[in-house]
């Protein structure tokens, strides 16, 4: 066990149907974009190896169906998530209004150890379109009220800010993981965490 354990980060993308979750994932992993819309059924995932802070990390990115009838994916889907990407469509007020519900759904289903500092990012997608309905200011304001979630305005079509958004979530997921490892050491002075000592290996119980 001398070598540093390989790190796998599970990232979940949530948001209303049609906001571009699959397109964002495909742009990030495969550098591809298709204008054709095809509803995601249930869920799908892609993996990508990236270098973050001089460390090779495997991102397992889960794309979900925004449609209601596919939403009950069960705990296996959310279990062990390290980060969550909330997506809305900057041309659709409704999709922005749903962010609260998606965030709540995620926190309830995955019940992370650390609800306060759990890594989220919010993406306002489709900024390549002209009929904008949600202002930058408004989106930023919402993010501030939720413990300063980082906010990016993206275009999966034109590959704007996609890379940066995924990098940010990966970095904060790693930071959280590190924090949890440090909390393992005896004599730790941070007392406001769970009483039970936890490390990455035991997080699936």
């Amino acid at each position: 066990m001398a070598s540093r354990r390989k790190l796998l980060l599970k990232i979940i993308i949530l948001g209303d149907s049609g906001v571009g979750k699959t397109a964002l994932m495909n742009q990030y992993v495969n550098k591809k974009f298709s204008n054709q819309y095809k509803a995601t059924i249930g869920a799908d995932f892609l993996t990508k190896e990236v270098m973050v802070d001089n460390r090779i990390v495997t991102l397992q990115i889960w794309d979900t169906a925004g449609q209601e009838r596919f939403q009950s994916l069960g705990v296996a889907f959310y279990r062990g998530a390290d980060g969550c990407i909330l997506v809305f469509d900057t041309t659709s007020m409704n999709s922005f209004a749903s962010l609260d519900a998606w965030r709540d759904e995620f926190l309830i289903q995955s019940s992370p150890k650390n609800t306060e500092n759990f890594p989220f990012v919010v993406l306002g997608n489709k900024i390549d379109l002209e009929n904008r309905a949600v202002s930058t200011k408004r989106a930023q304001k919402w993010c501030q009220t939720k413990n300063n979630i980082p906010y990016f305005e993206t275009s999966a079509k034109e590959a704007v800010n996609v890379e940066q958004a995924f990098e940010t979530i990966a970095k904060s997921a790693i930071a959280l993981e590190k924090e949890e490892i440090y909390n393992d050491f005896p004599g730790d002075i941070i007392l406001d965490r769970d009483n039970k000592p936890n490390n990455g290996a035991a997080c699936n119980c």
Partner: protein
Amino acid sequence: MNCVSDYAHSNEYNSFRSSVPLKTIIVDPDSSKGWKIYDSGPRSISTPLIFLPPVSGTADVYFKQLLSLGAKGYRVISAEHPVYWSVREWCEGFRRLIDYMGFYKVHIFGASLGGFLAQKFAEHVSSSRRVISLFLCNTFIDTSVFSYSESASLFWMLPSVVLKKMVMRNFNTSDVDSHIVDSIDFMVEKLDSLSQQDLASRLTINCVHSRVNPEKLSYVRMVTIMDVFDECALSTPVREKIYDCYKNAKLAHLKSGGNFPYLSRSDEVNLFLQIHLRTFEGTYLSASDNKDCSLS
């Protein structure tokens, strides 16, 4: 047999044993040799998913998959082979089994030795393209990784106890969670139930030098490779070799799970299996009778 592990007297296992009968199907001239089969899910499906156990396992090690996926409308079958001493003999035996059961094309899930045999079978029948998809779990493409090929020719005469020790060496029980401990307990029981001939023949196939020729597998429509990021019997280079072979494979990594994630992380494994099989839903190659392919 004396069952002591938590899994063996869990309600889930009992429900499996009382709802899915164990059948023996004889496909060899020697009538003492039979495949042990559990068959779950709709009989109308003739392109099922067939599970092949690892060295230490019996057909019931997949009870969590058979119960859950069977209930969701997938035809799932676990098949444990009789004593075969070579890969070729195994492939012929497996072909006769699926012929007998009336399947022309199948999806295969294989763990460790089971995964290796699944690939060898896909290679064996490459001209008739009988393998639709492969789901490979903690497995390898080349037996030389075990560096036993010299002594493998003597396994047939080694006492059971020695063979069991060879297998159990890989079962790491330190620093793991309770699900993994339970999965190991259950597998040790399964290992104990195997005869000397069973175990010696499996280890022989596992260790006599042989490798998969991935070029012959290019016809397989979909490959998912599952592995765990915690401790398991296979080293990282071995796992990376298999990724290289299947460039287009889906990589279903688990953060942890040990050697037997289909037991210790069954709900996650089942989710990955559904995503794998869903590619074929609604086509003539589907392993399920679902019209609506939701994952719920």
